[in-house]
Protein backbone atom coordinates (compact mmCIF):
# COMPACT_ATOMS: atom_id res chain seq x y z
CA UNK A 1 0.00 0.00 0.00
CA UNK A 2 1.48 3.34 -1.02
CA UNK A 3 1.87 6.22 1.45
CA UNK A 4 -0.57 8.31 -0.54
CA UNK A 5 -3.23 5.60 -0.22
CA UNK A 6 -2.46 5.24 3.48
CA UNK A 7 -2.88 8.97 4.08
CA UNK A 8 -6.08 8.99 2.03
CA UNK A 9 -7.54 6.08 4.02
CA UNK A 10 -6.57 7.76 7.30
CA UNK A 11 -8.11 11.07 6.23
CA UNK A 12 -11.32 9.26 5.28
CA UNK A 13 -11.46 7.56 8.68
CA UNK A 14 -10.94 10.91 10.45
CA UNK A 15 -13.69 12.47 8.33
CA UNK A 16 -16.05 9.55 8.87
CA UNK A 17 -16.14 10.39 12.61
CA UNK A 18 -16.16 14.17 12.38
CA UNK A 19 -17.45 15.07 15.83
CA UNK A 20 -15.24 12.58 17.57
CA UNK A 21 -12.17 13.69 15.61
CA UNK A 22 -12.86 17.36 16.42
CA UNK A 23 -13.27 16.62 20.13
CA UNK A 24 -10.09 14.58 20.11
CA UNK A 25 -8.17 17.36 18.41
CA UNK A 26 -9.50 19.89 20.92
CA UNK A 27 -7.06 18.68 23.55
CA UNK A 28 -4.15 19.14 21.15
CA UNK A 29 -5.53 22.51 19.97
CA UNK A 30 -5.74 23.87 23.51
CA UNK A 31 -2.36 22.45 24.48
CA UNK A 32 -0.54 23.79 21.43
CA UNK A 33 -2.11 27.25 21.51
CA UNK A 34 -1.45 27.67 25.24
CA UNK A 35 2.17 26.57 24.88
CA UNK A 36 2.78 29.00 22.02
CA UNK A 37 1.01 31.85 23.83
CA UNK A 38 2.75 31.39 27.19
CA UNK A 39 6.14 31.11 25.57
CA UNK A 40 5.23 34.12 23.40
CA UNK A 41 4.21 36.15 26.47
CA UNK A 42 7.48 35.26 28.21
CA UNK A 43 9.47 36.15 25.11
CA UNK A 44 7.54 39.41 24.75
CA UNK A 45 8.36 40.37 28.33
CA UNK A 46 12.03 39.53 27.78
CA UNK A 47 12.18 41.55 24.58
CA UNK A 48 10.70 44.49 26.45
CA UNK A 49 13.32 44.28 29.18
CA UNK A 50 16.08 44.00 26.62
CA UNK A 51 14.79 47.04 24.77
CA UNK A 52 14.73 49.04 27.98
CA UNK A 53 18.22 48.01 28.95
CA UNK A 54 19.64 48.69 25.53
CA UNK A 55 17.95 52.10 25.76
CA UNK A 56 20.35 52.86 28.62
CA UNK A 57 23.02 53.45 26.03
CA UNK A 58 25.03 51.36 23.66
CA UNK A 59 28.10 49.35 24.71
CA UNK A 60 27.54 50.42 28.28
CA UNK A 61 29.32 49.24 31.40
CA UNK A 62 28.04 50.34 34.76
CA UNK A 63 30.25 50.22 37.84
CA UNK A 64 28.49 50.45 41.19
CA UNK A 65 29.85 50.34 44.72
CA UNK A 66 29.72 46.89 46.31
CA UNK A 67 28.31 46.05 49.72
CA UNK A 68 29.93 47.48 52.83
CA UNK A 69 30.75 45.87 56.15
CA UNK A 70 30.61 48.17 59.17
CA UNK A 71 32.61 47.92 62.40
CA UNK A 72 30.09 45.55 64.03
CA UNK A 73 30.30 43.14 61.10
CA UNK A 74 26.89 44.11 59.74
CA UNK A 75 26.94 43.96 55.97
CA UNK A 76 24.97 46.54 54.08
CA UNK A 77 23.18 45.76 50.85
CA UNK A 78 24.38 46.11 47.31
CA UNK A 79 25.48 49.66 46.60
CA UNK A 80 25.57 50.66 50.26
CA UNK A 81 29.29 51.29 50.32
CA UNK A 82 30.84 54.53 49.17
CA UNK A 83 33.85 52.89 47.64
CA UNK A 84 33.77 54.54 44.24
CA UNK A 85 35.27 57.96 43.88
CA UNK A 86 35.77 60.64 41.29
CA UNK A 87 39.41 59.56 41.26
CA UNK A 88 38.33 56.12 40.08
CA UNK A 89 36.32 57.72 37.29
CA UNK A 90 39.27 59.88 36.33
CA UNK A 91 41.52 56.82 36.24
CA UNK A 92 39.12 54.95 33.95
CA UNK A 93 39.03 57.98 31.67
CA UNK A 94 42.79 57.66 31.14
CA UNK A 95 43.02 56.14 27.65
CA UNK A 96 46.48 54.72 28.36
CA UNK A 97 45.10 52.58 31.19
CA UNK A 98 41.70 51.76 29.72
CA UNK A 99 42.17 52.06 25.94
CA UNK A 100 38.78 50.53 25.15
CA UNK A 101 36.74 53.10 27.07
CA UNK A 102 35.35 55.81 24.81
CA UNK A 103 33.77 57.95 27.50
CA UNK A 104 33.26 57.89 31.24
CA UNK A 105 30.46 59.49 33.23
CA UNK A 106 30.55 59.26 37.01
CA UNK A 107 27.17 59.93 38.58
CA UNK A 108 26.07 60.77 42.07
CA UNK A 109 22.36 60.29 42.55
CA UNK A 110 20.24 61.57 45.43
CA UNK A 111 16.56 62.17 45.90
CA UNK A 112 15.82 65.82 46.42
CA UNK A 113 13.19 68.51 46.16
CA UNK A 114 13.33 71.00 43.34
CA UNK A 115 11.39 74.22 43.75
CA UNK A 116 10.23 76.42 40.89
CA UNK A 117 8.22 79.39 42.09
CA UNK A 118 5.33 77.92 44.07
CA UNK A 119 5.85 74.36 42.75
CA UNK A 120 7.77 71.75 44.72
CA UNK A 121 8.71 68.43 43.05
CA UNK A 122 10.76 65.53 44.40
CA UNK A 123 13.05 64.00 41.82
CA UNK A 124 16.39 62.29 41.35
CA UNK A 125 19.22 64.76 41.35
CA UNK A 126 22.05 63.36 39.27
CA UNK A 127 25.42 65.00 39.49
CA UNK A 128 27.58 63.97 36.53
CA UNK A 129 29.98 65.15 33.86
CA UNK A 130 29.54 66.48 30.33
CA UNK A 131 29.97 63.04 28.77
CA UNK A 132 26.78 61.66 30.43
CA UNK A 133 24.64 62.64 27.47
CA UNK A 134 26.69 60.53 25.03
CA UNK A 135 27.34 57.66 27.40
CA UNK A 136 23.64 57.25 28.18
CA UNK A 137 22.68 57.82 24.54
CA UNK A 138 20.25 60.59 25.41
CA UNK A 139 19.32 63.65 23.40
CA UNK A 140 18.07 67.12 24.27
CA UNK A 141 14.65 68.46 23.50
CA UNK A 142 15.66 72.08 24.01
CA UNK A 143 18.55 74.12 25.36
CA UNK A 144 21.97 72.55 25.83
CA UNK A 145 23.86 70.20 28.17
CA UNK A 146 26.48 71.52 30.56
CA UNK A 147 30.07 71.82 29.32
CA UNK A 148 33.29 70.39 30.72
CA UNK A 149 34.17 73.88 31.90
CA UNK A 150 30.91 74.18 33.82
CA UNK A 151 31.61 70.78 35.38
CA UNK A 152 35.11 71.91 36.41
CA UNK A 153 33.71 75.13 37.89
CA UNK A 154 30.72 73.55 39.59
CA UNK A 155 28.48 76.02 37.76
CA UNK A 156 24.93 76.58 39.02
CA UNK A 157 23.17 75.09 36.00
CA UNK A 158 20.65 72.25 35.71
CA UNK A 159 19.24 70.10 32.88
CA UNK A 160 15.76 68.71 33.54
CA UNK A 161 14.15 65.46 32.42
CA UNK A 162 11.00 66.04 30.32
CA UNK A 163 8.67 64.81 33.11
CA UNK A 164 10.37 66.97 35.72
CA UNK A 165 10.20 69.99 33.43
CA UNK A 166 6.50 69.37 32.86
CA UNK A 167 5.82 69.16 36.59
CA UNK A 168 7.75 72.28 37.51
CA UNK A 169 6.83 74.59 34.66
CA UNK A 170 3.25 74.29 33.54
CA UNK A 171 3.64 75.92 30.18
CA UNK A 172 6.35 77.29 28.00
CA UNK A 173 9.98 76.22 27.93
CA UNK A 174 11.71 76.11 31.31
CA UNK A 175 15.05 76.96 29.69
CA UNK A 176 16.37 80.15 31.27
CA UNK A 177 14.16 79.81 34.36
CA UNK A 178 15.65 79.50 37.82
CA UNK A 179 14.88 76.57 40.13
CA UNK A 180 16.00 76.12 43.74
CA UNK A 181 17.47 73.02 45.36
CA UNK A 182 18.04 73.34 49.12
CA UNK A 183 18.07 77.07 48.76
CA UNK A 184 20.60 77.12 45.91
CA UNK A 185 19.44 78.87 42.77
CA UNK A 186 20.23 76.97 39.56
CA UNK A 187 19.59 78.08 36.01
CA UNK A 188 17.78 75.63 33.73
CA UNK A 189 19.89 75.35 30.58
CA UNK A 190 18.24 72.37 28.82
CA UNK A 191 15.49 69.74 28.77
CA UNK A 192 16.12 66.08 27.83
CA UNK A 193 14.11 64.27 25.16
CA UNK A 194 11.91 61.43 26.55
CA UNK A 195 13.50 57.96 26.82
CA UNK A 196 10.79 55.79 28.40
CA UNK A 197 10.79 53.84 31.63
CA UNK A 198 13.90 52.03 32.79
CA UNK A 199 14.09 48.33 33.63
CA UNK A 200 14.00 49.05 37.35
CA UNK A 201 10.72 50.88 36.96
CA UNK A 202 11.99 54.35 37.87
CA UNK A 203 11.48 56.90 35.19
CA UNK A 204 14.53 57.98 33.27
CA UNK A 205 12.56 61.07 32.35
CA UNK A 206 12.04 62.38 35.90
CA UNK A 207 15.55 63.63 36.69
CA UNK A 208 17.49 66.81 37.31
CA UNK A 209 21.10 66.81 36.11
CA UNK A 210 23.81 69.15 37.37
CA UNK A 211 27.59 69.15 37.19
CA UNK A 212 28.81 66.63 39.78
CA UNK A 213 30.50 69.24 42.00
CA UNK A 214 27.33 71.32 42.03
CA UNK A 215 25.22 68.32 43.08
CA UNK A 216 27.59 67.48 45.91
CA UNK A 217 27.64 71.07 47.12
CA UNK A 218 23.88 71.59 47.15
CA UNK A 219 23.09 68.24 48.80
CA UNK A 220 26.07 68.23 51.16
CA UNK A 221 27.25 64.74 50.21
CA UNK A 222 30.57 63.08 51.04
CA UNK A 223 32.94 64.85 48.71
CA UNK A 224 34.13 62.83 45.76
CA UNK A 225 32.10 59.60 46.34
CA UNK A 226 29.95 58.57 43.39
CA UNK A 227 26.98 56.16 43.07
CA UNK A 228 27.59 54.78 39.57
CA UNK A 229 30.32 55.20 37.00
CA UNK A 230 29.03 54.66 33.47
CA UNK A 231 31.67 53.62 30.95
CA UNK A 232 31.01 53.53 27.23
CA UNK A 233 33.21 51.05 25.35
CA UNK A 234 34.61 52.09 21.98
CA UNK A 235 32.44 49.44 20.27
CA UNK A 236 30.38 46.33 20.95
CA UNK A 237 33.36 44.09 20.23
CA UNK A 238 35.62 45.87 22.75
CA UNK A 239 33.01 45.77 25.52
CA UNK A 240 34.53 42.64 27.08
CA UNK A 241 38.02 44.09 26.89
CA UNK A 242 36.81 47.33 28.45
CA UNK A 243 35.12 45.34 31.20
CA UNK A 244 38.34 43.52 32.04
CA UNK A 245 40.42 46.70 31.92
CA UNK A 246 38.06 48.53 34.27
CA UNK A 247 37.92 45.53 36.59
CA UNK A 248 41.71 45.21 36.76
CA UNK A 249 42.21 48.95 37.18
CA UNK A 250 39.76 49.32 40.06
CA UNK A 251 41.06 46.20 41.87
CA UNK A 252 44.56 47.62 41.53
CA UNK A 253 43.54 51.11 42.71
CA UNK A 254 41.65 49.70 45.69
CA UNK A 255 44.41 47.19 46.41
CA UNK A 256 42.03 44.19 46.44
CA UNK A 257 41.90 40.67 45.09
CA UNK A 258 38.97 39.99 42.75
CA UNK A 259 37.18 37.93 45.44
CA UNK A 260 37.12 41.01 47.72
CA UNK A 261 35.97 43.48 45.06
CA UNK A 262 34.18 46.41 46.67
CA UNK A 263 32.39 47.33 43.48
CA UNK A 264 30.12 45.66 40.95
CA UNK A 265 30.95 45.92 37.29
CA UNK A 266 28.06 45.03 34.99
CA UNK A 267 27.55 44.99 31.24
CA UNK A 268 24.16 45.39 29.62
CA UNK A 269 24.19 41.65 28.94
CA UNK A 270 24.55 40.83 32.60
CA UNK A 271 21.78 43.30 33.45
CA UNK A 272 19.55 41.64 30.85
CA UNK A 273 20.40 38.21 32.22
CA UNK A 274 19.49 39.24 35.75
CA UNK A 275 16.24 40.83 34.66
CA UNK A 276 15.36 37.81 32.54
CA UNK A 277 16.00 35.27 35.26
CA UNK A 278 12.69 36.06 36.98
CA UNK A 279 10.83 36.19 33.70
CA UNK A 280 12.23 32.86 32.64
CA UNK A 281 11.18 31.09 35.82
CA UNK A 282 7.62 32.29 35.33
CA UNK A 283 7.62 31.38 31.65
CA UNK A 284 8.94 27.89 32.36
CA UNK A 285 6.25 27.41 35.01
CA UNK A 286 3.44 28.50 32.69
CA UNK A 287 4.81 26.60 29.72
CA UNK A 288 5.08 23.55 31.97
CA UNK A 289 1.40 23.77 32.81
CA UNK A 290 0.60 24.21 29.13
CA UNK A 291 2.79 21.22 28.28
CA UNK A 292 0.82 19.12 30.76
CA UNK A 293 -2.40 20.08 28.98
CA UNK A 294 -0.70 19.02 25.73
CA UNK A 295 0.16 15.67 27.30
CA UNK A 296 -3.47 15.27 28.37
CA UNK A 297 -4.44 16.03 24.77
CA UNK A 298 -2.07 13.30 23.58
CA UNK A 299 -3.62 10.80 25.97
CA UNK A 300 -6.99 11.82 24.53
CA UNK A 301 -5.71 10.87 21.07
CA UNK A 302 -4.58 7.48 22.38
CA UNK A 303 -7.92 6.90 24.09
CA UNK A 304 -9.90 7.64 20.95
CA UNK A 305 -7.57 5.56 18.78
CA UNK A 306 -8.04 2.60 21.14
CA UNK A 307 -11.81 3.03 20.94
CA UNK A 308 -11.50 3.28 17.20
CA UNK A 309 -9.48 0.06 16.95
CA UNK A 310 -12.04 -1.81 19.08
CA UNK A 311 -14.89 -0.39 17.05
CA UNK A 312 -13.31 -1.20 13.73
CA UNK A 313 -12.22 -4.76 14.48
CA UNK A 314 -14.28 -6.01 11.53
CA UNK A 315 -12.84 -3.45 9.15
CA UNK A 316 -9.34 -4.41 10.27
CA UNK A 317 -10.14 -8.11 9.79
CA UNK A 318 -11.53 -7.50 6.33
CA UNK A 319 -8.54 -5.41 5.28
CA UNK A 320 -6.25 -8.18 6.50
CA UNK A 321 -8.24 -10.85 4.64
CA UNK A 322 -7.93 -8.76 1.48
CA UNK A 323 -4.16 -8.68 1.82
CA UNK A 324 -3.26 -5.92 4.29
CA UNK A 325 -0.05 -6.87 6.11
CA UNK A 326 0.29 -6.09 9.82
CA UNK A 327 2.65 -3.29 8.75
CA UNK A 328 0.03 -1.75 6.48
CA UNK A 329 -2.57 -1.81 9.27
CA UNK A 330 -0.14 -0.35 11.81
CA UNK A 331 0.76 2.37 9.37
CA UNK A 332 -2.85 3.25 8.67
CA UNK A 333 -3.67 3.74 12.36
CA UNK A 334 -0.41 5.58 13.03
CA UNK A 335 -1.08 7.97 10.16
CA UNK A 336 -4.61 8.45 11.47
CA UNK A 337 -3.31 9.39 14.93
CA UNK A 338 -0.64 11.66 13.43
CA UNK A 339 -3.27 13.36 11.33
CA UNK A 340 -5.33 14.08 14.45
CA UNK A 341 -2.20 15.50 16.09
CA UNK A 342 -1.09 17.50 13.07
CA UNK A 343 -4.48 19.03 12.25
CA UNK A 344 -5.02 19.77 15.95
CA UNK A 345 -1.57 21.38 16.01
CA UNK A 346 -2.30 23.50 12.92
CA UNK A 347 -5.57 24.75 14.40
CA UNK A 348 -3.74 25.42 17.67
CA UNK A 349 -1.12 27.49 15.83
CA UNK A 350 -3.82 29.51 14.07
CA UNK A 351 -5.57 30.19 17.39
CA UNK A 352 -2.24 31.11 19.01
CA UNK A 353 -1.46 33.56 16.17
CA UNK A 354 -4.90 35.16 16.50
CA UNK A 355 -4.37 35.29 20.28
CA UNK A 356 -0.92 36.82 19.84
CA UNK A 357 -2.46 39.53 17.67
CA UNK A 358 -5.35 40.19 20.05
CA UNK A 359 -3.71 39.82 23.51
CA UNK A 360 -1.49 42.95 23.51
CA UNK A 361 -4.61 45.08 23.06
CA UNK A 362 -6.52 43.15 25.75
CA UNK A 363 -3.97 42.82 28.55
CA UNK A 364 -1.29 45.31 27.54
CA UNK A 365 1.44 42.67 27.38
CA UNK A 366 3.55 42.18 24.28
CA UNK A 367 3.43 38.66 22.79
CA UNK A 368 6.29 37.63 20.56
CA UNK A 369 5.63 34.37 18.67
CA UNK A 370 8.70 33.09 16.88
CA UNK A 371 8.59 30.91 13.79
CA UNK A 372 10.89 28.46 15.58
CA UNK A 373 8.51 28.10 18.54
CA UNK A 374 5.60 27.59 16.15
CA UNK A 375 7.45 24.95 14.15
CA UNK A 376 8.49 23.24 17.38
CA UNK A 377 4.88 23.23 18.61
CA UNK A 378 3.69 21.70 15.33
CA UNK A 379 6.43 19.10 15.53
CA UNK A 380 5.35 18.32 19.09
CA UNK A 381 1.72 17.90 18.04
CA UNK A 382 2.76 15.51 15.28
CA UNK A 383 5.06 13.62 17.64
CA UNK A 384 2.24 13.37 20.19
CA UNK A 385 -0.06 11.87 17.57
CA UNK A 386 2.58 9.38 16.51
CA UNK A 387 3.74 8.66 20.06
CA UNK A 388 0.27 8.07 21.43
CA UNK A 389 -0.79 6.26 18.25
CA UNK A 390 1.88 3.57 18.49
CA UNK A 391 0.10 1.45 21.08
CA UNK A 392 -3.38 1.50 19.47
CA UNK A 393 -1.81 0.90 16.04
CA UNK A 394 0.14 -2.13 17.19
CA UNK A 395 -3.02 -3.46 18.86
CA UNK A 396 -4.75 -3.18 15.49
CA UNK A 397 -1.83 -4.78 13.68
CA UNK A 398 -1.78 -7.74 16.08
CA UNK A 399 -5.46 -8.63 15.61
CA UNK A 400 -5.76 -11.95 13.79
CA UNK A 401 -7.99 -11.74 10.73
CA UNK A 402 -10.15 -14.64 11.92
CA UNK A 403 -10.98 -13.11 15.29
CA UNK A 404 -11.46 -9.75 13.67
CA UNK A 405 -13.86 -11.14 11.04
CA UNK A 406 -15.78 -13.26 13.51
CA UNK A 407 -16.60 -10.37 15.83
CA UNK A 408 -20.09 -9.00 15.43
Amino acid at each position, binding site marked *: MSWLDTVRAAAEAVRAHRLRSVLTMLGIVIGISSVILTVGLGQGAQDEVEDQISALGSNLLSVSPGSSTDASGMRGGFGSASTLTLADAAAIADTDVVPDAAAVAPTSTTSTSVVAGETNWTTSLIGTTASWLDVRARTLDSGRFFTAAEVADGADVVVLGPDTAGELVARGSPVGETVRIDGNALTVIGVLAPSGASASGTSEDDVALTPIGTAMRVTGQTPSSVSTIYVEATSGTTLTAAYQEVEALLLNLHGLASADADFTNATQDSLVATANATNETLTILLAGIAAISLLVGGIGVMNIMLVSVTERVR*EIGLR*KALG*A*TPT*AIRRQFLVEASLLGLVGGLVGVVIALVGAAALPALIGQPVSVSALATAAALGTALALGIGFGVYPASRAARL*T*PIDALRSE
Partner: protein
Amino acid sequence: MSAIIELESIRKTYRSAAVEFEALRGVDCTIQAGEYVAVVGPSGSGKSTLMHLLGCLDNPSEGRYHLAGEDVSTMSEAGLAEVRNRRIGFVFQQFHLLASLPAWRNVELPLVYAGVPRSERRERALAALDRVGLADRVDNRPGELSGGQQQRVAIARALVTEPSLLLADEPTGNLDSRSTADVLGLLDELHAAGRTIVLITHEHDVAARAGRRLVIHDGEIVADHLAGAIA
Protein backbone atom coordinates in the same frame (compact mmCIF):
# COMPACT_ATOMS: atom_id res chain seq x y z
CA MET B 1 -5.48 -30.17 -15.06
CA SER B 2 -3.18 -28.71 -12.41
CA ALA B 3 -3.85 -28.88 -8.68
CA ILE B 4 -4.76 -25.54 -7.06
CA ILE B 5 -5.08 -26.95 -3.55
CA GLU B 6 -3.11 -29.84 -2.11
CA LEU B 7 -3.70 -30.68 1.55
CA GLU B 8 -1.58 -33.38 3.19
CA SER B 9 -2.38 -34.66 6.72
CA ILE B 10 -3.59 -31.27 7.86
CA ARG B 11 -4.21 -31.01 11.58
CA LYS B 12 -5.33 -27.99 13.54
CA THR B 13 -5.36 -27.99 17.31
CA TYR B 14 -6.63 -25.10 19.42
CA ARG B 15 -5.11 -24.84 22.83
CA SER B 16 -6.35 -22.78 25.72
CA ALA B 17 -5.11 -22.93 29.31
CA ALA B 18 -6.96 -26.09 30.24
CA VAL B 19 -8.51 -27.44 27.07
CA GLU B 20 -7.03 -28.81 23.89
CA PHE B 21 -9.38 -29.09 20.97
CA GLU B 22 -8.52 -30.81 17.72
CA ALA B 23 -10.60 -29.10 15.06
CA LEU B 24 -9.03 -30.93 12.11
CA ARG B 25 -7.57 -34.42 12.49
CA GLY B 26 -5.67 -35.24 9.36
CA VAL B 27 -7.27 -33.84 6.23
CA ASP B 28 -5.97 -34.93 2.83
CA CYS B 29 -7.48 -33.42 -0.23
CA THR B 30 -6.59 -32.17 -3.71
CA ILE B 31 -8.66 -29.67 -5.66
CA GLN B 32 -7.92 -29.14 -9.37
CA ALA B 33 -8.05 -25.85 -11.23
CA GLY B 34 -11.55 -25.13 -12.50
CA GLU B 35 -13.33 -27.29 -9.95
CA TYR B 36 -16.44 -26.11 -8.10
CA VAL B 37 -16.31 -27.75 -4.67
CA ALA B 38 -18.78 -27.50 -1.80
CA VAL B 39 -17.62 -28.24 1.72
CA VAL B 40 -20.59 -29.33 3.80
CA GLY B 41 -20.99 -30.41 7.36
CA PRO B 42 -22.85 -29.51 10.56
CA SER B 43 -21.65 -26.65 12.74
CA GLY B 44 -18.70 -27.67 14.89
CA SER B 45 -17.57 -30.17 12.25
CA GLY B 46 -14.40 -28.21 11.47
CA LYS B 47 -15.53 -26.65 8.22
CA SER B 48 -14.87 -23.09 9.39
CA THR B 49 -11.39 -24.12 10.49
CA LEU B 50 -10.82 -25.73 7.09
CA MET B 51 -12.02 -22.58 5.37
CA HIS B 52 -9.61 -20.45 7.48
CA LEU B 53 -6.71 -22.71 6.50
CA LEU B 54 -7.73 -22.82 2.83
CA GLY B 55 -8.03 -19.01 2.93
CA CYS B 56 -4.54 -18.66 4.42
CA LEU B 57 -6.06 -16.84 7.38
CA ASP B 58 -4.31 -19.26 9.73
CA ASN B 59 -1.47 -21.82 9.75
CA PRO B 60 -2.13 -25.54 10.28
CA SER B 61 -0.67 -27.13 13.42
CA GLU B 62 0.63 -30.01 11.33
CA GLY B 63 0.69 -31.03 7.69
CA ARG B 64 1.42 -29.40 4.37
CA TYR B 65 -0.70 -27.02 2.32
CA HIS B 66 0.31 -26.15 -1.22
CA LEU B 67 -1.71 -23.38 -2.83
CA ALA B 68 -1.09 -23.12 -6.58
CA GLY B 69 2.17 -24.99 -6.07
CA GLU B 70 3.40 -22.78 -3.22
CA ASP B 71 3.87 -24.19 0.29
CA VAL B 72 1.94 -21.81 2.53
CA SER B 73 1.72 -23.99 5.67
CA THR B 74 4.54 -22.30 7.56
CA MET B 75 4.42 -18.81 6.13
CA SER B 76 4.66 -15.69 8.29
CA GLU B 77 1.67 -13.43 8.79
CA ALA B 78 2.96 -10.91 6.28
CA GLY B 79 3.67 -13.70 3.77
CA LEU B 80 0.14 -15.08 4.19
CA ALA B 81 -1.28 -11.57 3.71
CA GLU B 82 0.48 -11.35 0.40
CA VAL B 83 -0.74 -14.83 -0.68
CA ARG B 84 -4.32 -13.92 0.29
CA ASN B 85 -4.05 -10.75 -1.71
CA ARG B 86 -2.67 -12.46 -4.81
CA ARG B 87 -4.29 -15.90 -4.79
CA ILE B 88 -7.60 -15.79 -2.95
CA GLY B 89 -10.89 -13.97 -3.38
CA PHE B 90 -13.11 -14.08 -0.30
CA VAL B 91 -16.90 -13.94 -0.20
CA PHE B 92 -18.32 -13.79 3.32
CA GLN B 93 -21.74 -14.47 4.76
CA GLN B 94 -21.91 -10.92 6.23
CA PHE B 95 -20.60 -9.36 2.97
CA HIS B 96 -18.03 -7.34 4.96
CA LEU B 97 -18.24 -4.22 2.86
CA LEU B 98 -16.96 -0.91 4.26
CA ALA B 99 -20.09 1.18 4.75
CA SER B 100 -18.34 4.52 4.24
CA LEU B 101 -17.03 3.70 0.76
CA PRO B 102 -18.96 3.54 -2.53
CA ALA B 103 -19.17 0.17 -4.28
CA TRP B 104 -16.20 0.71 -6.58
CA ARG B 105 -13.94 1.81 -3.72
CA ASN B 106 -14.86 -1.40 -1.88
CA VAL B 107 -14.02 -3.43 -4.97
CA GLU B 108 -10.65 -1.73 -5.48
CA LEU B 109 -9.46 -2.43 -1.90
CA PRO B 110 -7.47 -5.62 -2.69
CA LEU B 111 -5.73 -3.72 -5.51
CA VAL B 112 -4.77 -0.96 -3.03
CA TYR B 113 -2.91 -3.54 -0.95
CA ALA B 114 -1.42 -5.05 -4.12
CA GLY B 115 0.09 -1.65 -4.91
CA VAL B 116 -1.73 -1.20 -8.23
CA PRO B 117 -1.73 2.45 -9.42
CA ARG B 118 -4.88 4.45 -8.78
CA SER B 119 -6.10 4.90 -12.34
CA GLU B 120 -5.74 1.21 -13.14
CA ARG B 121 -7.54 0.32 -9.91
CA ARG B 122 -10.67 2.22 -10.87
CA GLU B 123 -10.68 0.70 -14.33
CA ARG B 124 -10.37 -2.84 -12.99
CA ALA B 125 -12.93 -2.26 -10.21
CA LEU B 126 -15.46 -0.98 -12.76
CA ALA B 127 -14.81 -3.98 -15.01
CA ALA B 128 -15.36 -6.37 -12.07
CA LEU B 129 -18.61 -4.61 -11.10
CA ASP B 130 -19.72 -4.86 -14.73
CA ARG B 131 -18.92 -8.58 -14.62
CA VAL B 132 -21.36 -9.08 -11.69
CA GLY B 133 -24.00 -6.92 -13.37
CA LEU B 134 -23.67 -3.80 -11.19
CA ALA B 135 -22.24 -1.39 -13.75
CA ASP B 136 -24.96 1.12 -12.83
CA ARG B 137 -24.34 0.92 -9.07
CA VAL B 138 -20.62 1.74 -8.87
CA ASP B 139 -21.06 4.95 -6.87
CA ASN B 140 -23.67 3.62 -4.42
CA ARG B 141 -22.67 2.95 -0.86
CA PRO B 142 -23.47 -0.51 0.58
CA GLY B 143 -26.36 0.96 2.59
CA GLU B 144 -28.08 1.93 -0.66
CA LEU B 145 -27.89 -1.60 -2.09
CA SER B 146 -30.02 -4.71 -1.45
CA GLY B 147 -28.49 -7.76 0.24
CA GLY B 148 -28.09 -9.57 -3.07
CA GLN B 149 -26.46 -6.52 -4.65
CA GLN B 150 -24.11 -6.15 -1.68
CA GLN B 151 -23.04 -9.78 -2.05
CA ARG B 152 -22.46 -9.20 -5.75
CA VAL B 153 -20.21 -6.22 -4.86
CA ALA B 154 -18.34 -8.57 -2.53
CA ILE B 155 -17.98 -11.10 -5.37
CA ALA B 156 -16.68 -8.36 -7.66
CA ARG B 157 -14.14 -7.50 -4.94
CA ALA B 158 -13.14 -11.19 -4.76
CA LEU B 159 -12.65 -11.32 -8.54
CA VAL B 160 -10.83 -8.05 -9.07
CA THR B 161 -7.36 -9.47 -8.42
CA GLU B 162 -7.97 -12.44 -10.76
CA PRO B 163 -7.26 -14.90 -7.90
CA SER B 164 -6.52 -18.62 -8.31
CA LEU B 165 -9.25 -19.49 -5.84
CA LEU B 166 -12.65 -18.04 -5.00
CA LEU B 167 -13.47 -18.95 -1.41
CA ALA B 168 -17.10 -18.43 -0.42
CA ASP B 169 -18.10 -18.92 3.23
CA GLU B 170 -21.90 -19.35 3.48
CA PRO B 171 -22.34 -16.71 0.75
CA THR B 172 -26.13 -17.06 0.78
CA GLY B 173 -26.58 -17.38 4.54
CA ASN B 174 -27.90 -13.82 4.90
CA LEU B 175 -29.91 -13.67 1.68
CA ASP B 176 -33.57 -14.25 0.80
CA SER B 177 -34.35 -17.01 -1.71
CA ARG B 178 -34.42 -14.70 -4.72
CA SER B 179 -31.04 -13.15 -3.93
CA THR B 180 -29.74 -16.63 -3.15
CA ALA B 181 -30.65 -17.83 -6.60
CA ASP B 182 -29.14 -14.66 -8.02
CA VAL B 183 -25.80 -15.14 -6.26
CA LEU B 184 -25.63 -18.88 -6.93
CA GLY B 185 -26.38 -18.21 -10.59
CA LEU B 186 -23.44 -15.83 -10.65
CA LEU B 187 -21.17 -18.47 -9.07
CA ASP B 188 -22.34 -20.98 -11.72
CA GLU B 189 -21.43 -18.52 -14.44
CA LEU B 190 -18.00 -17.92 -12.91
CA HIS B 191 -17.43 -21.67 -12.69
CA ALA B 192 -18.47 -22.06 -16.29
CA ALA B 193 -15.92 -19.37 -17.17
CA GLY B 194 -13.19 -21.51 -15.57
CA ARG B 195 -12.93 -20.21 -12.01
CA THR B 196 -11.95 -22.51 -9.15
CA ILE B 197 -14.56 -22.11 -6.43
CA VAL B 198 -14.68 -23.56 -2.94
CA LEU B 199 -18.02 -22.98 -1.25
CA ILE B 200 -18.63 -23.67 2.40
CA THR B 201 -22.23 -24.23 3.39
CA HIS B 202 -24.52 -26.27 5.55
CA GLU B 203 -27.41 -26.01 3.09
CA HIS B 204 -27.66 -29.06 0.87
CA ASP B 205 -29.52 -27.36 -1.96
CA VAL B 206 -26.70 -24.80 -2.17
CA ALA B 207 -24.11 -27.58 -2.09
CA ALA B 208 -25.98 -29.37 -4.87
CA ARG B 209 -24.89 -26.66 -7.31
CA ALA B 210 -21.26 -27.68 -6.93
CA GLY B 211 -19.63 -30.35 -9.05
CA ARG B 212 -18.01 -32.00 -6.02
CA ARG B 213 -19.02 -32.29 -2.40
CA LEU B 214 -16.67 -32.77 0.53
CA VAL B 215 -18.54 -33.83 3.65
CA ILE B 216 -16.69 -33.01 6.82
CA HIS B 217 -17.52 -34.43 10.21
CA ASP B 218 -15.61 -34.25 13.51
CA GLY B 219 -12.57 -32.82 11.83
CA GLU B 220 -12.28 -35.37 9.07
CA ILE B 221 -13.45 -35.62 5.49
CA VAL B 222 -15.94 -38.48 5.63
CA ALA B 223 -17.20 -38.35 2.06
CA ASP B 224 -15.97 -36.97 -1.26
CA HIS B 225 -18.75 -37.11 -3.87
CA LEU B 226 -18.71 -36.08 -7.46
CA ALA B 227 -22.03 -34.56 -8.51
CA GLY B 228 -22.79 -37.49 -10.81
CA ALA B 229 -22.33 -40.03 -8.00
CA ILE B 230 -25.24 -38.87 -5.90
CA ALA B 231 -28.67 -37.90 -7.10
